[in-house]
């Protein structure tokens, strides 16, 4: 197991360095930042001063190392748009995005896994078809459309939920459902196929033969094995939910980091874009690493093989 951990850690580190390099280079291609900051009334002298102040006149490798050095200490520089430290901006907005991500992930797991298990118990039955139907609908429906439909129904036609804002728990209900529903189909279908495969395995028959009850066989023996690929998927989905909540945050005016990223892209706020991309990449890498560890713990074949 230790060798396995070290191997995965080194791989994660290599990915993180590559991501930081790509991230830094990509954003450099987005135009002259000094011109964006100076705006249409800036003089040549002002533009030169901005380039000097931001170190944009230095060689690119040096700019990268300076940026990476700062980032590792939590210093991502100042936002060009807000003129405040990037770290402060992200820190202020992270709670909303984390809350939404965690709620949506919980919603996905709580609904999708039981649905997958139920569907697998009676394959091709009406129940299975209904569960699949729910999943397919979730996959087919664009989240902005679903979000607006929820708003239309629950805020306009039957005004029981607030359409936007983040002033209380009730504000998170619709965003959670929208974000969670988009991730549900994959989790549900993977659980179903995993369960179908496992339920036909010999050891399950043995478990039943030993006289174990349905619940014990399903949840202690079958689900533990069926859920292994779901763990990896859930980790990836969670990363997606955090980084990909831009649409949901915009529609429900939650104004977390997803919305901040969107605004930063629109205003060419280079330090904010770089910092958010970097942080979410790290988060993604961390989640994948944790999922690998969890999988290795659940399935000895992974850590030994």
């Amino acid at each position, binding site marked *: 197991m230790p060798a396995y951990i070290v191997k995965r850690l080194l791989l994660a580190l290599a990915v993180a360095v590559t991501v930081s390099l790509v991230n830094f280079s990509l954003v450099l291609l*987005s*135009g*002259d*930042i000094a*011109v*964006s900051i*100076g*705006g*249409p*009334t*800036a*003089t*040549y002298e*002002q*533009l030169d*001063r901005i380039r000097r102040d931001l170190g944009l006149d230095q060689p690119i490798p040096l700019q990268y190392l300076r940026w990476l050095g700062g980032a590792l200490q939590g210093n991502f520089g100042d936002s060009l*748009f*807000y*003129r*405040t430290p990037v770290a402060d*901006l992200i820190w*202020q*907005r992270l709670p909303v995005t984390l809350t939404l991500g965690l709620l949506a992930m919980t919603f996905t797991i709580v609904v999708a896994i039981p649905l997958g298990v139920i569907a697998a118990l009676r394959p091709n039955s009406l129940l299975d078809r209904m569960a699949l139907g729910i999943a397919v609908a979730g996959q087919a429906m*664009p989240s*902005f*459309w679903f979000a*607006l*439909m929820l*708003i*239309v129904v629950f*805020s*306009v*036609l039957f*005004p029981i939920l*607030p*359409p*936007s*804002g*983040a002033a209380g728990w009730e504000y998170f209900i619709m965003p959670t459902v929208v974000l969670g529903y988009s991730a549900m189909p994959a989790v549900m279908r993977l659980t179903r196929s995993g369960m179908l495969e496992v339920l036909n395995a010999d050891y399950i028959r043995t478990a039943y033969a030993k006289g174990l009850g349905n619940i014990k066989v399903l949840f202690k023996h079958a689900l533990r094995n069926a859920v292994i690929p779901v763990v990896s998927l859930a980790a990836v989905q969670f990363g997606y939910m955090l980084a990909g909540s831009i*649409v949901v945050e*915009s*529609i*429900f*005016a939650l*104004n977390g980091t997803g*919305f*901040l990223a*969107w*605004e930063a*892209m*629109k*205003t*060419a706020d280079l330090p904010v874009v770089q910092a958010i991309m970097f942080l979410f990449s790290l988060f993604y890498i961390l989640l994948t690493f944790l999922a690998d560890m969890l999988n290795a713990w659940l399935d000895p074949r992974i850590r030994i093989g």
Partner: protein
Amino acid sequence: MTMRVKGLHLGSVQWGALAMAGALAFAPLTASAGKKEDTLNIGWSRVIETNDVYFNQAVREGMIVGRMIWDNLVERDPVTGEYKPLLATSYKWINETTLDMELRQGVKFHNGADFSADDVVYTLNWASNPESKVSVPIMVNWIKNVEKTGPFAVRINLKQPFPAALEYLSAAIPIYPHEYYARVGTKGMSEAPVGTGPYIASNVQPGRTITLTKNPNYLKGGPKGTPTIGKIVQRTIADEQTQVAELLSGRLDWMWNATPDTADNLRKRGNLNVIDGETMRIGFISFNANGTGGANPMQDVRVRRAVAHAIDRQGITKALIRGSARVIPSACYPTQFGCAQDGIPQYAYDPAKAKALLAEAGFPNGLDIDLYGYLDRPHTEAIMNNLQAVGIRPKLNWLTFGPMFTALQQGKAPFTHLTTGAWSINDVSITLRGSFAGGPWDIARDQKVIDLVLAADNIVDQDKRKALYKEALVRINEQVYWLPLNTYYITYAFTKDLDFTPHADEVARFYQSKWK
């Protein structure tokens, strides 16, 4: 994000509008909660980057909030255009470069500090110092320095004659409390703004919401009037359809920038006022006539004129922009001082003439060329259709503001579809100084225009100024450095409980609004 349904090509906005249109038909009439609670709930999509007006990149929403929190020395009456004393009680030009002002006594800042000449001297000297790096230096760089001539009297010394001084002083030059700003700096001022204005910022959550409470001690009888609404809560709601839902559910009392389709749907409702207000924003095409960044076909005035003849400005404005938008003859907003309307060369919609000009310029088979744009895509695409009809095959480079301006400045863009709101300054100097006076944004670099603009900027005689600006505008159109297109308008939607009047400078004056 787009979806295709039975030949219809709908974007997310249209899908959202479609859903909301359906909802509008069935939605119950929910009364606004605002009037009952004496709280005006307003929403808009753009984020104000900082509440420190001097570092705001002229986003209108920042100006709106700024005018509520702070006062300027003078106020331009949006209806008559007259400059009325605000924090000043009177002003007098001593000579062409010296402006004396008497200041109002007994005014207090929101933190209890007394307003005096020290605040004016500090604010204007600080803002006009290049080291302060304010966002729009052109707004203050005409000030040489400001002296205190008494506890409530100041003298503003100008670098050279600048007749538009009062217009600039009335626009985006608010007076800050000197001790407070020196202590907290721009970050502190943005997070906890302190001014003398009609509203006090009581809760600021950057990028999300600002709560403004009526200033009970606001000066009486001033040109901004006396605020009547107790509380104003602003929220940033990025999505237009969400704003509509908030409006329909009575949680929002006012929104703006409704798209034409949304506005049409909202008009069908009985409980909302939906009105169009013309703005100072104009659309135009800028040409790289100077060949900065490498040779391009737009260096030939015949090609530029071909573009001008190819575009059906009237048709596009009527069909696409609708509302009160109109075609403009010159490169400025008609009410701006010096924005000549008559005697400017015009280019009628004439595709045959456009083709002939192209052939004469050596492009009988048309040409392939890059077109840049950043804001008004449906309009840009309509222009592209017109151009294709005469053989100009544009390849669209759709960028965000920053990269678009980089391309423009570095001469990568042969021609660009742009807009400008002139920072709500009702004087043509703001536009011409920025784009035709030889600075980084002047891609025409025509010495004749540069001389005319610089001369006009520094002449006090208003008739001579007008004549010089007109000469510059004539040359700009004659050479087609810019092709003026149209004005824009904004659609406001608000509860019928609210008495609200829009103005062309796009500054919503909530301190003059009241409940009906």
